[in-house]
């Protein structure tokens, strides 16, 4: 398992899309996909998926719960193009059509350990009031042809969006051979888990 001069490093992601918090919408499901650069190759696991349809909880539980598992491993030669997870949330509108309720993206955490990320969601806005009205009637809201566009930085300056709701994702990250290749990803001063000294055991 150990190589003296590795040329690739591995990134293993275990986690779940825990749930969402949308005040006005109910009966939502989400789709996820991973977007990554040219140097990255997924070696095992699922790159995309669709969750179940979930309703808001009653009583003290506010928010939707998906509890949707994420398991994927990447290998790469270069941290550029670090994977991002793109989450798209869909739900029914007043007439029963399936419309987009939010897009969001976040980079997979860089350092090993457990991390929780809250992703703000947004929807593209219609350009004119007439289009807003027609889309409300027809049930065809403005949406992106490819949700992956949310993970890229270029071409976004012409989009007008409205942010609504958040999605919570938790990650457990493992990396292999990043240190051997010279990459330093963890903060040495952060209060993390200390290795037990021989005196403690």
């Amino acid at each position, binding site marked *: 398992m150990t190589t003296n001069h590795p040329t690739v490093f591995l990134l293993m992601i275990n986690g779940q899309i825990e749930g969402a918090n949308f005040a006005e919408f109910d009966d939502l499901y989400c789709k996820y996909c991973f977007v990554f650069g040219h140097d990255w190759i997924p070696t095992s696991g699922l790159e995309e998926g669709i969750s179940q349809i979930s309703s808001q909880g009653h009583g003290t539980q506010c928010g939707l719960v998906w509890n949707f598992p994420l398991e994927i491993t990447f290998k790469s030669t270069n*941290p550029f193009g670090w994977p991002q997870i793109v989450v798209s949330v869909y739900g029914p509108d007043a007439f029963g059509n399936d419309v987009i309720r939010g897009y969001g993206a976040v*980079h997979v955490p860089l350092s090993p350990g457990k991390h929780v990320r809250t992703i703000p969601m947004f929807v593209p806005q219609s350009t004119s009031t007439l289009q807003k009205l027609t889309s409300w009637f027809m049930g065809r809201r403005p949406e992106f042809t490819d949700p992956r566009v949310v993970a890229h*930085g270029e071409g976004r*300056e012409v989009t*007008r969006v409205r942010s609504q709701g958040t999605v919570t994702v938790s990650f457990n990250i493992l990396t292999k051979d990043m240190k051997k290749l010279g990459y330093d990803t963890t903060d040495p001063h952060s209060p993390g888990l200390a290795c037990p000294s021989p005196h403690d055991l």
Partner: protein
Amino acid sequence: MAELHIIGQIVGASGFPQSSLFCRWGVHTGGAWRLLSGLREGQTQVDSPQSSDTAFWSHPIDLHYTTKGLQGWPKLHLQVWHQDLFGRCELLGYGYCHVPSSPGHHRLRCATWRPLGSWQEQLAQMFVGGGPQLRSPDVIYSGADRYRLHTVAMGTVELELGIILRNFDKYGVES
């Protein structure tokens, strides 16, 4: 040669008087740094929040620099603008922050400021909008000519940046 990866996003902005906001950002470095991959500047989408007072952009930043020296460590500078119903853009704030120099995940809050004109200009700005802007964006991240400016504080921009350093310890640099 030592390498630096900046992987993160411009999360959003809060505390501004208007709500339909976008941000123009750029990264400035010294002469010893070379950008290997990534976009060194960009503009986010325009966001009007539905219910909260924070505008969310989630604009991804992925930069790969290589360097021969520590001088001129990258600085991220921002301009927050407001776009109204008619599509006119108005400057709301300038701000900058240094890219963190220690590896790991960092949450940054960058405070912004806006140049203040004379009292006549402020009165006109209340009715007509607009307002003084910097002629060149260098003043945002350099201290050279700041003494000429009179500014007023505006909201804050939130960033989440992950930093990966490579080979810095080989050169004896502690971070």
